[in-house]
């Protein structure tokens, strides 16, 4: 087995990447911070218009980057994902390592640092999508690391770049800096107090987008929302990052304030909710993905507000990935119908949570 194959096997077998286990700043509200830089090679058609030979050329070029990236960042692997199954690709999507678009490509590849905090998606919508992740609210460090990765690639590859437009991308919504900075937030108290919508409306006026998976009503699935910059050009990278940082810090502050308010005005309701959620998760025999997300959010809030001191927070992060359909099937070692999935999910959550209770 080659180094890359062994690495991929290890990645697929561990739901929690090494970077997710580190403790990040403001972890009570912020799950992770991410920087993405879109980069293309000069005089080579963008991926959606490349011939097979050109795709091969791009992959060869990426393979050549393994050594210089490793010496700059520590162990980096070039992994050709062409031969991987749809399930394995979906597992990588659920781990935030590749995008759904990338998973659907005939020949996706990636350059990944051992702790999976740095992923360079090769042959996605653009030739290279540099992606750096870090736990908690930590935009400065992801921004610095992404810049470092970019410099290493740029020393070997001629980028498609124009003085006027900046870095050229397949979609004009990414042109200029090619930068998207984002923070994943868990804001249950803002949702419970009905303040979330107002905040989203306000931040959208300063060039910030809030995305989330929504349930039947309006609250985000598991109260998780991704805040990111909307525009990629006309401003310097540092300014875009600083803008997002400022807005995110405010949202975090508001969430903490809402939690304090709930703790004084709706204390028993909150305790009841957290303990009930833990009760359901440790006893249910069937759990849909949505219900699991919802209950895990309530337990997380309980942990972060010191109501549930018995639960180890790391297991919550692990379950967030493990309860997703592909990871669940990977762990079960067979393909499952949606009903079977709900049973296996319930069993897994019961077992992991009970084992972690202190």
């Amino acid at each position, binding site marked *: 087995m080659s180094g890359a194959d062994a690495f991929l096997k290890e990645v697929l077998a561990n739901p929690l990447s090494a970077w997710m286990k580190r403790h990040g700043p403001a972890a009570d509200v912020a799950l992770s911070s991410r920087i*993405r830089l879109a980069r*293309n090679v000069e*005089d080579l*058609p*963008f991926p959606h*218009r490349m011939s097979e030979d050109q795709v091969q050329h791009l992959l060869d070029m990426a393979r050549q980057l393994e050594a210089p990236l490793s010496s700059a960042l520590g162990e980096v692997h070039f992994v050709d994902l062409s031969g991987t199954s749809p399930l394995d690709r979906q597992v990588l*999507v*659920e781990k*935030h390592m590749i*995008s*759904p*678009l990338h*998973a*659907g490509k005939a020949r996706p590849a990636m350059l990944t640092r051992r702790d999976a905090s740095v992923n360079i998606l090769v042959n996605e*919508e653009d030739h290279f999508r540099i992606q750096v992740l870090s736990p908690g609210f930590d935009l400065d460090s992801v921004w610095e690391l992404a810049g470092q990765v970019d*410099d290493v690639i*740029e*020393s070997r590859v*001629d*980028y*498609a*770049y*124009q*003085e*006027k*437009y*900046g*870095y*050229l*991308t*397949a*979609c*004009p*919504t990414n*042109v*200029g*800096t090619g930068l*998207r900075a984002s923070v994943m937030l868990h804001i249950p108290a803002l949702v419970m107090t009905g303040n979330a919508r107002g905040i*989203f*409306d306000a931040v*959208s*006026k300063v060039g910030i*987008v*809030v*995305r989330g*998976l*929504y*349930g*039947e009503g*309006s609250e985000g*699935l598991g109260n998780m929302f991704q805040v990111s910059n909307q*525009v*990629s*050009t*006309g*401003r*310097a990278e540092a300014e875009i990052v600083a803008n997002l940082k400022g807005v995110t810090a405010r949202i975090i502050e508001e969430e903490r304030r809402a939690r304090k308010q709930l703790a004084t005005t709706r204390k028993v309701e909150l305790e009841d909710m957290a303990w009930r959620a833990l009760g359901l998760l440790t006893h249910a025999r069937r759990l849909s*993905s949505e219900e699991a997300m919802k209950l895990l959010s309530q337990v997380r809030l309980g942990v972060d507000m010191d109501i549930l001191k018995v639960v180890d927070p790391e297991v919550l992060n692990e379950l967030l990935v493990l309860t*997703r*359909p592909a990871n669940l099937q990977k762990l079960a070692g067979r393909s499952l119908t949606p009903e079977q999935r709900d049973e296996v999910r319930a069993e897994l959550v019961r077992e992991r949570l009970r084992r972690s209770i202190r």
Partner: protein
Amino acid sequence: MLCQECGQKPATVHYSQIINGHQTELHLCADCAKEKGYGVWSMEPTFYLNQLLAGLLHQDPIQVGAGLKCDLCGLGYDEFARTGKLGCGRCYTAFGNRLEPLIRRIQGSSVHAGKVPRRTGGRLRLKRELQALKRQLQEHVAREEFERAAELRDQIRELEERLKEGK
């Protein structure tokens, strides 16, 4: 709730996006969501943006670009207007005049103010530096600080020489 796309299976994927206070919602069944590229935790709703973009292009008078073609990758402007995706870096030059107002509209600006690649952008860095020095020179002249202005003028000359040589 039934899937908005096929209208047959129950909607299990709910997607919502707010841009400038305007919210759009999509409720799809798992199959249609997959087909449209929405996964749970989709990191980048590129499909969505491309659709929006194509929409903008279609209602646009700048569509008169029909017939334009990129000489490197062969992409026609009409195809770009349909998909919202460019074919290669050269397309930005080929469709220049028509692209610029569009980029300005989506991004609020079309002028790059960020990072310059170190190696390929060597000349560019010098040019940016030159512009900055010229601005400073004007400021010092305005404040009648002629000694400092003279120093700056020499630096500017030297940079201009280097730029000429590098050509």
